[in-house]
């Protein structure tokens, strides 16, 4: 199993929802780390462990944006089957992700809502699962 520990691989102080709102945002985490790691794990038939512990806390928007984009690009079922969230210090975040973020973003996706991208430059090409196949592209342009 592969693992991402936010504290050591991203930031000890995760930030707001969007890149334009501040450093270490959920959007940035998704594009710098989570998308690539999840795609690799999926390709290898692995599950991905996402460890939230050890940071100075979370804005729920950070988690919503990061995990929500994952649902948008890979689909609810694939995310549910392949992502293991660990949050021992604040168990509430695991519940929020499982019971709110994943189902709500699935609805957004079905309803045709597109995630916002707010980095100054477009994000480098990222993975998306289309008809069971991983494809890479700049699927959404940044609008700051």
């Amino acid at each position: 199993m592969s693992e991402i520990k936010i504290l050591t691989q991203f930031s000890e102080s995760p930030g707001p929802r969007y890149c334009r709102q501040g450093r270490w945002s959920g959007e940035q985490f998704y594009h710098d780390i989570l998308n690539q790691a999840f795609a690799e794990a999926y390709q290898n038939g692995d599950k991905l462990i996402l460890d939230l512990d050890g940071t100075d806390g979370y804005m729920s928007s950070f988690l919503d944006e990061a995990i929500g984009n994952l649902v948008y690009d890979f689909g609810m079922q694939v995310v549910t089957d392949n992502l293991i969230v660990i949050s021992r210090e604040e168990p509430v975040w695991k519940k929020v992700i499982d019971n709110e973020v994943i189902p709500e973003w699935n609805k957004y996706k079905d309803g045709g809502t597109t995630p916002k991208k707010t980095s100054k430059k477009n994000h480098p090409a990222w993975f998306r699962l289309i008809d069971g196949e991983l494809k890479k592209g700049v699927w959404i342009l940044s609008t700051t």
Partner: protein
Amino acid sequence: MDIVYYIMPLSDLTDWVSIGVDLVVGLMIGGVLAYFIPKRLNDSRSLKDFYISEIRDVKVEFNELCKQISIGKMNAVVMKETFKQLSIRLNDIQYSVNNHLKLDLNIVSFIESTQGFITSADEINEQYESKYLILASATKRELVKRQELFNRNVLSAIARINDVG
């Protein structure tokens, strides 16, 4: 001088044994009533007082946090960190209370839902790097409502802890 021997009849012996047993049992019951029960009651009272004081501390800190957020004296980073600390502390206390006093309190969920609500508010994310957060009126009103709900539930939790026999 002649010594007079008295041979105790069997029925007298059983009476004496019975008196002896009554005495021992009486002393044991007396000991339990005089020492163990008050000690146990005292231990239980001290434990309840400890839990109540811990919960009260979290209540004070939570109210202070809400106040600082409402009056624009708090930044986003300190806010999320304080929420985390309060949530961890109350989770531990609640676990211990429920475990030792056989209760099913759930007051930490009120902090968690406030944490979820406030850290997902658009204006808080927009001001993430600001020195002080300024809340929209609707967010402020909702925060006050959640604060009141938490306080009410803390009082009811304290009453339930006190009621434990």
